[in-house]
């Protein structure tokens, strides 16, 4: 094969991996050196434990509620193939994934908040005590809004992988709705649960923006938010490091546990062609399904509607002509485009390197270790709190002059890193299948280097790359995590601008900006998940 070319790829992969580890490691080291954790007794005081307890509590509750809601919804979606607008409901359920958390929070406040639809209706109905969205309730609400659709889609994908013969056999045998759930659907869902629950738990435990905006005080604060407060308000790096260590240990343990007990949930192949099923057309089952689907539609749909409605009431024309908004748009683009490109490039390099290293006939311990580190870094990167990375680099670069000059670069790098696991999950399956299909053939025909890229690799992989790029773009555009520390008059991305307008109670402006940001991100998300909609060729 092309030995020199492969060696170069592996070397580049090594550099890439080294770069990632260095970027994370240096940031942590800088904070450690700066703060010096020695001798501080107050690091793990009552506040830290309370925050930790609350983090675990809200993440467990969010996970549990998301999954409890997702099971009947996924089942109804699988069963009611003829439900009018099913495909649109599925598309709607793919949207929260790409909606910036800040925008979603605004939408949820519009619906569930003090001035929201629900409370107005309750007050009109004569109930004096309005429900408050701030605190645990709001956090759970937001987490279920984001994760119920995710969980339901993953379960649905699992249910749709059940062979068509199962449904025919169960219909032929006359299995009832309960028996079908117990003997066919539940075993499939149960197999997926550890993976889905782990993923949702991770996302909820490290949730930052939602807790920051909806937590409403120290009583409802997670570790991630506490880190931010320790850095931005108290500038107490030792505490930030201690909290980060706690977070990394907690989530790391969970990830390790999941690696052993649960396979990662498989995305893909949802929607599109519905499998023909024969159950669920009887009155009661059908009614229950329709109620669940309607509930899901209302729950997921109303915040979107609220964002659109209140955004359109804002003075959009003035907003769009505002200098600050223009600059925020440009800043966002200048940060999101390179960070998405970097994320895609690094992910592709990592996948290729991992495969090359492992495809050698006799890969020794070092090779396996190398490949294993790549694989682990792709998921463990989620553990490094963006705020901590930012703070570490802030300290590292301070001796070299005004940190504001470096701030955009740090934000780009952090955003790229944060998008890496998601990009990896989109690219890896496509690249691995493609390689398995073409590697040997291309090698035997002597197609290598640029020609292989041009004729063999690019055409079939183009779509996966665009999908990954688009998704990374949406993630980076909507991110408030990295910018939260560096945001200023001079470096204001759209989410930052939105956050500061919310902070100064310019609600109408915030609504308009939320609509703008929401639309931008959703466009890229839809482009980035377009692959989901392809209809599979019909079997049999």
């Amino acid at each position, binding site marked *: 094969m092309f030995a020199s070319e492969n060696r170069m790829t592996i070397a580049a992969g090594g550099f890439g991996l080294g770069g990632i580890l260095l970027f994370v490691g240096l940031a942590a080291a800088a904070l450690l050196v700066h703060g010096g954790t020695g001798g501080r007794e107050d690091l793990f005081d009552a506040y830290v434990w309370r925050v930790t307890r609350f983090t675990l509590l809200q993440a467990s509750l969010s996970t549990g509620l998301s999954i409890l809601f997702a099971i009947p919804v996924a089942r109804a979606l699988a069963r009611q193939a003829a439900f009018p607008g099913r495909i649109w409901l599925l598309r709607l359920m793919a949207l929260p994934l790409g909606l910036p958390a800040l925008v979603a929070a605004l939408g949820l406040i519009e619906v569930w908040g003090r001035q929201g639809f629900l409370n107005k209706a309750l007050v009109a109905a004569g109930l004096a005590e309005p429900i408050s969205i701030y605190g645990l309730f709001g956090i759970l609400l937001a987490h279920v809004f984001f994760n119920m659709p995710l969980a339901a889609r993953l379960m649905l994908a699992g249910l749709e992988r059940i*062979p068509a013969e199962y449904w*025919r056999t169960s*219909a*032929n*045998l*006359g*299995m009832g709705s*309960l028996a079908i759930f*117990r003997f066919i659907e539940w075993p499939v869902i149960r197999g997926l649960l550890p993976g889905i629950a782990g993923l949702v738990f991770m996302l909820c435990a490290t949730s930052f923006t939602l807790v920051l905006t909806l937590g409403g005080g120290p009583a409802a604060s997670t570790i991630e938010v506490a880190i931010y407060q320790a850095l931005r308000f108290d500038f107490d790096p030792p505490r930030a490091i201690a909290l980060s260590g706690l977070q990394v240990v907690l989530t790391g343990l969970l990830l390790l546990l999941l690696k052993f007990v649960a396979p990662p949930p498989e995305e893909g192949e949802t929607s599109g062609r519905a499998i023909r099923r024969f159950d669920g057309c009887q009155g009661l089952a059908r009614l229950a399904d329709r109620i669940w689907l309607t509930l899901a539609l209302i729950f997921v749909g109303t915040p979107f509607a609220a964002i659109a409605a209140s955004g359109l009431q804002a003075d959009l024309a003035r907003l769009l002509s505002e200098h600050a908004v223009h600059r925020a748009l440009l800043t966002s683009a200048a940060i999101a485009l390179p960070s998405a490109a970097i994320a895609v490039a690094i992910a592709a390099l990592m996948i290729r390197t991992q495969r090359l290293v492992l495809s050698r006939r006799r890969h020794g311990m070092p090779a396996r270790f190398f490949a294993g580190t790549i694989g682990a870094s792709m998921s463990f990167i989620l553990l490094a709190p963006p705020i901590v990375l930012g703070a570490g680099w802030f300290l590292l670069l301070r001796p070299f002059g005004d940190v504001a000059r470096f701030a955009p670069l740090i934000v780009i790098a952090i955003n790229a890193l944060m998008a890496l696991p998601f990009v990896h999950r989109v690219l890896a399956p496509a690249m691995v299948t493609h390689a398995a299909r073409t590697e040997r053939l291309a090698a035997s025909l002597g197609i290598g280097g640029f020609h292989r890229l041009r004729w063999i690799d690019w055409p079939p992989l183009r779509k996966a790359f665009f999908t990954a790029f688009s998704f990374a773009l949406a993630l980076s555009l909507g991110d408030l995590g990295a910018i939260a520390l560096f945001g200023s008059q001079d470096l204001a991305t759209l989410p930052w601008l939105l956050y500061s307008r919310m902070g100064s109670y310019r609600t109408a402006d915030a609504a308009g900006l939320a609509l703008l940001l929401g639309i931008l991100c959703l466009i890229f998300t839809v482009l980035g998940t377009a692959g989901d909609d392809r209809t599979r060729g019909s079997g049999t």
Partner: protein
Amino acid sequence: MTAAAVILRDVKVRFETTVLKFDCTVPAGEIVAVAGASGSGKSTLLNVIAGFEEPDQGEVRIFGDEMAGRPPADRPVSVIFQDNNLFAHLDVAANVGFGISPSLRLRNGDRERIEEALDRVGLAGFGKRLPPTLSGGERQRVALARALVRHRPLLLLDEPFAALDPGMRAEMRDLLADLHQEEGNTILMITHHPDDVRLFSDSVLFLDQGRIVAHDPIDRFLERRDLTAINRFLGQETGR
């Protein structure tokens, strides 16, 4: 009972680009081979009888009863497919047990019935095994055992031996023939193999482009030379 096992009268099934039309009468107690090229409508024919597909028009009668609107489970029919007949995560006994109770509520004596059925298909003692640990032929026999405990007078087989090697196919054919002798049921079996037609069936339903173009007793069918589709089908035999 004089009623025919299956009567299809003027049945039409519309697809996006084609319309399939079926007319036939299958006498009770026969083994009927259903043959024809891929896409000729064999599976649709079985789906209509089993109730997986509602015809757009026409009448389906099984043992004299009109089947319109009747769900698959309420028809006197058992079905075995080429693959995925067993729920892979449940053991063999549970899979057979569904033939007794679709909610798997088994009573005293049902265990024995399951064991007896497994014994009859040559799988005594296999009850605790999981389907993935069985060979393709063994899995099909478990499906057959399930059909046995269900006692439906009509058995539909959709290429049940297609994934099996020739030796196993012959074994399954013999087993099926023995059980047919004992049960006196009616069997419709889709097959691509002239051997299955010649050695196993009493008559042949031959489909071409969505129509039943021939329905003959086996001897007469084997002598037909007037239809190219049939020639091509039987010609495979000499080609091998």
